[in-house]
């Protein structure tokens, strides 16, 4: 569990990036901080691993204030994934993944073997292990970044817009991969994004932020969608434009969920026997299979 208690960060130049922020991040869940650029998301994330120290307030991990921990040691125990992967350009993929274990003194062979296994975990072919980052696609680089974040088997994984720089199709792939991973690993994930759809897709708990890291609303995706706290949240999630006001249309025998613009959002399956490709799902409750990428 990570706990922010009245955390404030004012940078030396006077920018008040975070103003009196309090939040409890539950263990083994994904908490998403979502807000527009400059709302203080990165600053919040970096205060957890002491890349940034708060001006006032405390941050505790399982009851221990991070201020009492040695920054380098703390960072080596927390996974960190960032937007442009931040891989070392002069090291191969496998060496990049093994960076922190090697720093911690894990023998080379072990570190390398572990790193190769991690490539499997994040869905990368071991064949690329000896390539350099510049020889990978953006999506592959991000996967390597995730593998590096997992290399020390951290309890906490911090992710700062990790899929922000890849194209929508690859992004959707990576998102699904992260959902699968999180299902297997159950890390305490703090995920930062400015993409509300991504937040809804990945978050167990979502904090919608305004300027200065002020929480506009905190809740599960369902809670927020059902009851936007105010106009700001409503416009942020797009509810005011009826974006998410979905209705069912029948098409070729299956029920398609369509948003107000007439764009398909998903297919309703499991309600009628044998309808649709996943008719095998023997569920009495209708559930939604999303179509390729959320309609934004």
């Amino acid at each position, binding site marked *: 569990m990570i706990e922010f208690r009245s955390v404030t960060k004012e940078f030396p130049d006077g920018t008040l990036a975070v103003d009196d922020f309090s939040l409890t991040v539950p263990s083994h869940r994904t908490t998403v901080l979502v807000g527009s650029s400059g709302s203080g998301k990165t600053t919040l994330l970096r205060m957890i691993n002491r890349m940034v120290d708060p001006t006032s307030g405390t941050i505790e991990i399982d009851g221990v204030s991070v201020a009492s921990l040695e920054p380098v040691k703390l*960072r080596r125990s927390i996974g*960190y994934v*960032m937007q442009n992967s931040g891989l070392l*350009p002069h090291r191969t993929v496998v060496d990049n993944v093994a960076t922190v274990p090697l720093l911690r003194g894990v023998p080379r062979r072990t570190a390398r073997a572990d790193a190769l296994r991690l490539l499997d975990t994040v869905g990368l072919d071991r064949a690329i292990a000896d390539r*350099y*980052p510049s020889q990978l696609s953006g999506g592959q680089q991000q996967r390597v970044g995730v593998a*590096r974040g997992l290399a020390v088997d951290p309890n906490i994984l911090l992710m700062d817009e990790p899929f922000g720089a890849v194209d929508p199709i690859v992004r959707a792939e990576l998102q699904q991969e992260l959902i699968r991973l999180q299902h297997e690993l159950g890390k305490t994930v703090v995920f930062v994004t400015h993409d509300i759809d991504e937040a809804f897709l990945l978050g167990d708990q979502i904090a919608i932020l305004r300027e200065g890291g002020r929480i506009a609303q905190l809740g599960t995706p369902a809670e927020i969608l059902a009851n936007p706290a105010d106009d700001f949240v409503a416009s942020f999630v797009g509810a005011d434009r009826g974006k998410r006001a979905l209705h069912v249309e029948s098409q070729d025998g299956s029920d398609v969920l369509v948003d107000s613009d007439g764009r398909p959002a998903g297919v309703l399956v499991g309600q009628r026997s044998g309808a649709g490709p996943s008719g095998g799902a023997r569920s009495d409750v209708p559930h939604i299979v999303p179509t390729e990428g959320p309609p934004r």
Partner: protein
Amino acid sequence: MNYFTDAVAWLLDPAHYPGPTGIPARLGEQLLFTVVTLVLASVIAIPVGFLIGHTGRGRGIAVATSGGLRAIPTLGLLTLVALWIGIGLGAPYVALTVLAIPPILAGAYTGFEAVNRATIDAARAVGMTELQIVRHVEIPLGLPLLIGGLRSATLQVVATATLAAYVADFGLGRFLFAGLKTNDYAQMLGGSILVILLALVLEGLFAGLQKLVVPRGVAVGRPPVDRKASTRRRPGMEPAITKGI
């Protein structure tokens, strides 16, 4: 054209080889002088350059002083120091060490500054100490530019060492000045050819070395896409190369 034949004849004349004023001895003097000067300058400039590059502090002062040093005409500095500390090797050593510092310093800190900000940031985020960042990230990635700095310093020193024969009895420059004094064009030209060959050989060596030290991951694949936005590069901070004498 027979000037050149004379020069080549002079170069091939066995009489010009033995002894402390022979071609090998003079060449050795010039090389030794160049190496010692570069080592002296590096010992001062590299640590300072790394410190500036890593912390980003003191850059303004470094740019200003090294720029100022660079604008000073070499011959002026050489003769002035020679007046101060007398004829001999002391003056060239002092003057040339001073002249070799700016390019090496610039190479050292621009090398660091050219390293992608995000890379350093990520290295810190995964838990590298500042020293580890310097050792494992900034030095390997900044090495090509540092070697570039050493390369222009070398060119400058080897060239100016020739000129230093004006105030001290050493190096290949002696052939030029001796030839000038006695109107011995073969000697002037022969000495000139030697100096030029030496400079070109060193230049070639450094060009090769510079390619060799580019980390493989940087040399292969695509170049980084977003150079402007993602590095600490600022206008006017490329290692300035000024013509050696």
